């Protein structure tokens, strides 16, 4: 049986591992390579690495750092942030990424999704969508452009049609808050897509992950809970098991 994935997400800024709250107030919390090593030894299901400076266009993608991180990963590694061209994807895959997460370029030019997925395969292309709720309505948010007047579900369906393999769905309002995932957002996505949705933003305790899966998430991503609490990915696995959610159990 296919397992629901629990995916730690690490944010890079100035070559360091940071944690954000609502996409700002970054705090440095360690070195990304040693963090990747720990996650590998804990047999996490996958790892997502997002380069914040690169995504804001402050820096180029940090290929050397990604190479070092990938050396530690014998699980699937997704890298995002600052991808602007097909050649950028080539560079990240050559550095050891298995998938890439694209956002700004896909918002600018949907045909980039088509081109990337036809070259690298859909399984390689994750489209990330950041969402903010404004006056009761969910809208797409972009770090560089701010709030956009786009319905996230329509955008996700558009990405799917153009060849995206997965959607990484992040609630900016819930991100870093520990209050749980945006379940209402997830419910809206349920049965709307034929590709998997990874829900991100807000997990503060293992039960939050259960709620996400029960409301339609295929996989969950989280950062804060692993960096700042005593919970490990294994605690979430056991919580899933208690609720009869299929999850990878290691011996």
């Amino acid at each position, binding site marked *: *049986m*296919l*397992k*629901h*994935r629990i995916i730690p997400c690490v944010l890079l800024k100035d070559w360091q591992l940071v944690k954000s709250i609502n996409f700002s107030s970054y705090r440095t919390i360690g070195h990304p390579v040693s963090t990747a090593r720990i996650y*590998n030894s804990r*047999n996490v*299901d996958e790892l997502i690495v997002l380069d914040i400076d690169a995504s804001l266009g402050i820096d180029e993608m940090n290929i050397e750092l990604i190479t070092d991180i*990938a*050396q530690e990963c*014998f*699980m*699937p590694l997704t890298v995002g942030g600052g991808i602007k061209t097909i050649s950028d994807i*080539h560079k990240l*895959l*050559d*550095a*050891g990424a*298995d998938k890439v997460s694209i956002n700004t370029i896909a918002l600018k030019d949907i045909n980039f999704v088509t081109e990337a997925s036809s*070259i*690298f*395969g*859909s*399984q*390689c292309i994750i489209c990330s969508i950041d969402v903010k709720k404004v006056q009761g309505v969910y809208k797409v948010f972009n770090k560089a452009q701010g709030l956009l007047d786009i319905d996230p579900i329509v955008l996700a369906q558009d990405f799917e049609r153009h060849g995206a*393999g*997965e959607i990484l769905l992040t609630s900016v309002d819930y991100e870093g808050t520990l209050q749980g995932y945006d379940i209402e957002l997830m419910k809206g996505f349920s*049965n709307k*897509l*034929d*590709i*998997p949705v990874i829900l991100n933003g807000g997990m503060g305790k293992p039960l939050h992950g259960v709620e996400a899966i029960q409301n339609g998430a*295929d*996989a969950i991503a989280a950062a804060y809970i692993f960096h700042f609490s005593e919970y490990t990915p294994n605690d979430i696995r056991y919580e899933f098991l208690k609720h009869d959610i299929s999850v*990878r159990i290691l011996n």
Partner: protein
Amino acid sequence: MGNFCSVQKSFERNNSNVIVSNDHKIIMNADKIVLPGVGSFRDGMKNLTNLGLIDVLNEEVIENKKPFLGICLGMQLMANTGYEISKTKGLGWIDGEVVKFDFPANNGLKIPHVGWNNLMIKSNNLLYEGIPDNKDFYFVHSYHLQLNEDVITGMTEYGYQFVSSISKNNLYGFQFHPEKSQELGLAIINNFINL
């Protein structure tokens, strides 16, 4: 394609000398041959054809019987025919076809099949030495092999049971990614290195 790097790294972690190459001479001098690959069946065959690798592979793998490991698309390409994008002739080493997951409408199963899923070992072979039955391995694919000959070593359930690994003489194929499946995956690669 793209995942050469992961495969290379997993061999190096097992202290094996690995060269990523499309050079005929290097392939002819190799002890063993690995064909990884994600991407489409059509483009995979097109690339092998354009690089002039089909004859070299036939000679080294089928005639000279060098141990061959096909991973994901690399396994699928061993079949007679693939149906991804358009009907395409494969290497024809295994009597079978590569078809898309076919589910009834609204059954809730997503395509691609991506994530960790159980490998049910159906027939033991040297590469499964020390691998317990029913463990999770990492999959990411939308198409799978449908066989007309019994070379199955493993099956996996996603909507229905599909072929997740095969072996025939010197040929080994995995639909999942051993290079991305942590300790047990690396153990399979180590078994291949030690053949």
